[in-house]
Structure formats: C-alpha cells, structure tokens
C-alpha cells in the first residue's frame, strides 16, 4: 500500500471515530443515527462498499428483549431482584463478582456472547435495588461475557483456533486447561477492581441529575416489592428458555440438522435457536403468566432494548463498512508490528480484535503469525485470550445494551470513544488473564511445544 492509501485509511478511521464520538455524545438512538450518517459518508464520500449490518445480533436482541420484557410485565424481574437480594443480603457487593462469572458461564455453554442480552436487565435491576453502582456489575459482566469465547468448546473462535495448535499437540482439553483457569483469575482481578471502581451511586453527579429530572426513578427497596400473581411462573419459563439455549449450545448432537452446503447435514447454528427459543418464551409468558401483549412494549426493558437495537444497527454497520474495506490494511499493519517485534504479539491480537470487532478474525490472522515467529503454541493459547479486545471500541451490541439498560447513567459509552465504562475492566481483565495463562503454560506445559524426538541419523 502506498503512503496515500495509508493516509486515506487513517482519514476513514478518523471519520468512524468521529461519528462514534458524535453518537455517544448524543446518546440513546442518536448513537445509531449518527452511525448511519457515518456509513453514508464512508460510502458516498470515500467510495467504500457498504458493510453488513448486524442482522443476526439485531434479531437476537428483538427476541431476547421480547422475552425479558414479557417477564418484566409479569413481575418476574421484581421476583428475581427479590431472590437475588435475599441471597446477597449479607454481602450485596458480591454481585460485582457473581454477575461476571454467571455471564462468563453463559458464553461458555452457548459459544456466543448473545445470550448475555437476557441477563443484562436482571443484573442492572439487582444492582440498582441494592444501591450498588450498576456500572460495576454491568461493565464487569460484559467483559467476562466476551472473555468466555476463548473458554467455550462450542465457540466459532475456538473452531478457528484448534486446527492451528493441534499440530503442536495441544488439543481442546489442553486449550481449556490454559484459558479457563487464566480467565477465572482475570475475572476475579477485574471484579476486585470493579467493586471499588467509581463513586458510590448516591454520590454520582450524573445519577443525581437524572433523579432530579425524573429520568431515573429512586430504587424500590426489595422489601417493598409487591409480587404479581404469576411472577414466579414467568421467571420459571424464562429460565427454562435460557437453560434450553445452554443445553442446545453445548450439545450439538441434539440440535435439529440443516442441509450443509457441501452435501449432507449439519447441526443448526445456535443463533437462530436463540431467536426461536426466546420468542417462544415470550409467547409462553403471555399465555401462562396472563400478560397482555399490549403491556410488553410499555416496559423499561423493551424501551432500552429497542434503543440498543437502533444504536447497534447504525454503529456496527458503520464499523463493518470501514473494517470490510480495510481489514487487510489493519492486519498488515499490526502483523508487521508483531513481525518486527514479536513481543508485541499479545498487544497486536488485542488491537486486531478491537479494530475488526471480530474474535475469529483476530484468531485466524494473528495466531498463525505468532506461531510462525517461533512463539510456543502454549504461550500463543495464553495470549489468544487477548481477543477480548473486541470491546476496545464501544461498537459491540452487549456494550450498547448494557449502557442503555442502566438508567442511572453510570454505565456509559464515554465521551472520547475510548473512555467508556468497559475500558478499565477490559484492560485489567485481558492483562491479568494473559499473564496468568503464560504462568500456567510455563508451570504445567513445560513452556514450549513438546520437544520433537531426536532424529535418527541415516547414512548417505
């Protein structure tokens, strides 16, 4: 690429960052609208081909929000808040630790971070009812949720990773033996930091402003909650749906099969399954919890979910338009960085994840390069967890949904693009996880790839 091409890529990148900044300043649906304007500028002014809008993610949000909103209309969210508050009565701040591990587990079981959408409202409500700064639990959970991809045997990124390291005698179990304990340590460190992060809720100026203006209602103490008659039933249906998604996600063999392109059949992807199951959950709640369909759109969860959907539509479309046209340049630049300075490989993985917003892309481009540079396969597995860098820019669906769900305003997408609520937990988490992974490999996997047998010398 010529210098002129690089300058053009940089200017396009600045346009993307500029419109994200405009969007986060505008807030709410403004994020999506400015993202749409950014897409238009990239296509009409810079002549880029339009990227793909995140249709699957949008459809999942619609399905999950429908189910969660139906549950809220039935009083189920109140019931969950009561139960969680009772469980956390002695130590409410334990939520900052419990929520991230639950969201991490959900991703491991389903192989996708999309299931997290279903528990965002619950985490937010439990935190708020207990007067815990929602940002602490929500931001930590969002990061832990993304980290779960490298610990999930059924994730697409894992399917990309395994063929790269199998030849070095690292199978799925070995990979999990490195990534799971490292991630558990990383999440703990992150949760520890997050449990002390930011001011207490009552002292937060933005929250006070929202309270004064009526944008946020004071939290209802869990003891004052009056349960609706079918609240428990709606929760049971909702949780059964989440469990069903986890079971179908983890056990491929029980999924319905679909025709494979190359002939034969293959298990259906988890994505449409989530959509079907969550829409069914919503319908069952309407029937068995006696909720009026007209009540569902009036809930807070529905409102914030729809805002998140519009925000994701515009922002992710703009980001994909930039990335689809410049992925090669991004990978080439960061690949050269790692080629010249191999010790930068973990940072390069993190940045490729952040700039392409794709864990699979970061895996397939940077891991082979690290192996070619002579870094041991075990260490590459440890550093692979840096693909959690997809949250570096606030253009991910879960980030947007978490920020929208938090009516107190403590969870935000930042004012200068990179100063969002997820940045500190993200950085703490990936650094500690990568370091812990490296130590695990050093201690238990002998550092490098198992040494090959000494070759037998044969005569001419």
């Amino acid at each position, binding site marked *: *690429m010529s210098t002129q091409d690089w300058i053009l890529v940089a200017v396009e990148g600045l346009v993307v960052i500029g419109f994200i900044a405009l969007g986060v300043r505008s807030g709410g649906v403004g994020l999506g609208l400015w993202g749409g304007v950014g897409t238009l500028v990239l296509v009409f002014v810079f002549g880029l*081909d339009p990227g*793909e*809008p995140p*249709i*699957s*993610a949008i459809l999942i949000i619609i399905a999950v929000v429908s189910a969660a909103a139906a549950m809220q209309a039935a009083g189920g969210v109140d019931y969950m808040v009561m139960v969680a508050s009772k469980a956390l009565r002695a130590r409410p701040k334990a939520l900052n630790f419990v929520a991230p591990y639950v969201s991490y587990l959900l991703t491991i079981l389903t*192989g*996708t971070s999309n299931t997290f959408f279903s528990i965002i409202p619950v985490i937010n409500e439990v935190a708020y009812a207990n007067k815990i700064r929602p940002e602490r639990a929500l931001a930590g959970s969002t990061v832990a949720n993304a980290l779960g991809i490298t610990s999930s045997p059924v*994730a697409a990124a894992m399917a990309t990773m395994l*063929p*790269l390291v*199998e*030849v*070095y005698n690292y199978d799925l179990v070995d990979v999990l033996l490195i990534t799971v304990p490292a991630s558990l340590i990383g999440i703990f460190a992150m949760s520890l930091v997050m449990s002390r992060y930011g001011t207490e809720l009552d002292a937060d100026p933005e929250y006070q402003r929202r309270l004064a203006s009526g944008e946020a209602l004071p939290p209802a103490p869990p003891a004052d909650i009056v349960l609706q008659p079918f609240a428990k039933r709606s929760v049971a249906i909702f949780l059964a749906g989440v469990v069903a998604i986890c079971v179908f996600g983890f056990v491929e063999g029980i999924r319905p099969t679909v025709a494979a*392109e*190359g002939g034969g059949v293959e298990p259906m*992807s*988890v*994505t449409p399954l989530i959509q079907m199951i969550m829409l069914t959950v919503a319908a069952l709640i309407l029937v068995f919890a006696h909720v009026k369909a007209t009540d569902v759109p009036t809930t807070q969860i529905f409102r914030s979910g729809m805002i998140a959907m519009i925000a994701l539509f515009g922002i992710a479309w703009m980001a994909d338009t930039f990335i689809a046209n410049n992925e*090669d340049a991004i*990978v*080439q630049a960061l*690949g050269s960085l790692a080629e010249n300075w*191999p*010790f*930068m*490989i*973990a*940072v390069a993985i993190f940045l490729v994840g952040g700039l392409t917003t*794709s*864990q699979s892309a970061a895996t*397939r481009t940077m891991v*082979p*390069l690290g*192996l*070619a*540079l*002579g*870094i*041991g396969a075990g*260490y590459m597995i440890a*550093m692979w967890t840096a693909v959690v860098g997809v949250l570096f820019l606030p253009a991910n669906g879960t980030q947007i949904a978490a920020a929208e769900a938090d009516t107190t305003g403590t969870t935000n997408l930042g004012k200068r693009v990179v*100063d969002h609520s997820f940045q500190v937990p993200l*950085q*703490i988490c990936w*650094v500690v996880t*990568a370091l812990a992974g*490296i130590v695990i490999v050093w201690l238990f996997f002998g*550092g490098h*790839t198992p*040494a*090959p*047998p*000494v*070759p*037998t*010398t*044969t005569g*001419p």
Partner: protein
Amino acid sequence: MRGPWLWVVVIVAGVVAVLGVTAIVGRDDNKNQTVSAGEWADSVCGSVAVWRGEIESIVDELRQPSATGSTGTTEPQSETPQSRTGFVRTGLERTVRATHTMITGVENAGVPDTPQGEQSANAISGWADATRNDLEDAQDSLDEEADTLADAIAQLTDAARAITGAVTSGVKAVADVGRTDPELAAALRDSSTCQELREETTS
C-alpha cells in the same frame, strides 16, 4: 495522582508487564541461527500444518458463504452477487496472507546443524524470497480495479496460480533439501510434528 490518570498508569504498567513477559517467554525466531535437525523439521512442518488448517477454514467458508455463523458477520439475508464476488476475493486475499505467514515460519526455522545445513537453509531462503515476491504481485493484482470481466477473472486466477505455485515450489524445495541432506530427510520423517501433519493429510 487520582482519577482517570491513575487508571492510565495502572493499565500502561499492565501492558508493559505483558510485553516484558512475552519478550521473556517468546523464543523469537531462529532465522540465521543454527538449530538441531529435529527442531528445524518441527518448525517447517508446524508452519505447513498451521497453513493447512487456515486453508481448510478458508475453503470451508468459500463453500458455505451463507452459513449462519454465530458471529453475525456473514449475513445470508444481505448477500448480493457483488458481495459474493467480494467473498471469493477475500478468500484469496486471506490465502495469500496465510501463505505469506507460512513462508515466514519456514524461513524462521533457522539453519539445521547438518553437513549440508547451510546449503539447505539457503535453498529454503531462496524459495521464500521468490515466493514472497510472487505473492506480493498477486496481492497487488487483487487490489487493482478490473475494467472488464476478463480482467476480473484473470486477477482471481492469477492469484490462485501464485498460491498454487508457492505451495508446489515449497514442497519441491523441501523435497530437494531432503534428497541432498539425508540427515534432514530423517528429521522430517521422524519429527512428531511432521508425523502429525502426515496423519492429518492422509485422514
């Protein structure tokens, strides 16, 4: 020091720690260094096996462009003939990149400590240089706008030919090295990574 700046310092310190630890544990490449025949064979086969895994994944995606993956990046509802062409192009670009990475890995395998080790390393290095140039030409060709349908097809076929040429000449280079250097041939036969690669190839 309080507030955001404290976090910036903490984060920078953490990233520096990762860089430091990576510098310590990452053994770096063996380019121009003398290594045992077994280690050389292991590196070469490892690079080829990683490349093979990448190509398998690219071919799978080319065969199933509308697969409803969990990442949400490939959208069947939005696919158009234009994006399908782009997908083939993307697949070729990824293949060029993967092949480039494989060459880097093979080149970084070092100089085997066998009687003909130096010549073997030179032969591999010569192949790497020539192939890298061919791949860069192929990438440049893919980057250009095609004026006609014939030009567009020629671009894609030229790129595919460059990749095939890189692999064929690579296999020949390694085979030649094995022929002239029996110790390396034995190492290539006995290395666990090469055995793994052979098993994968024949399965």
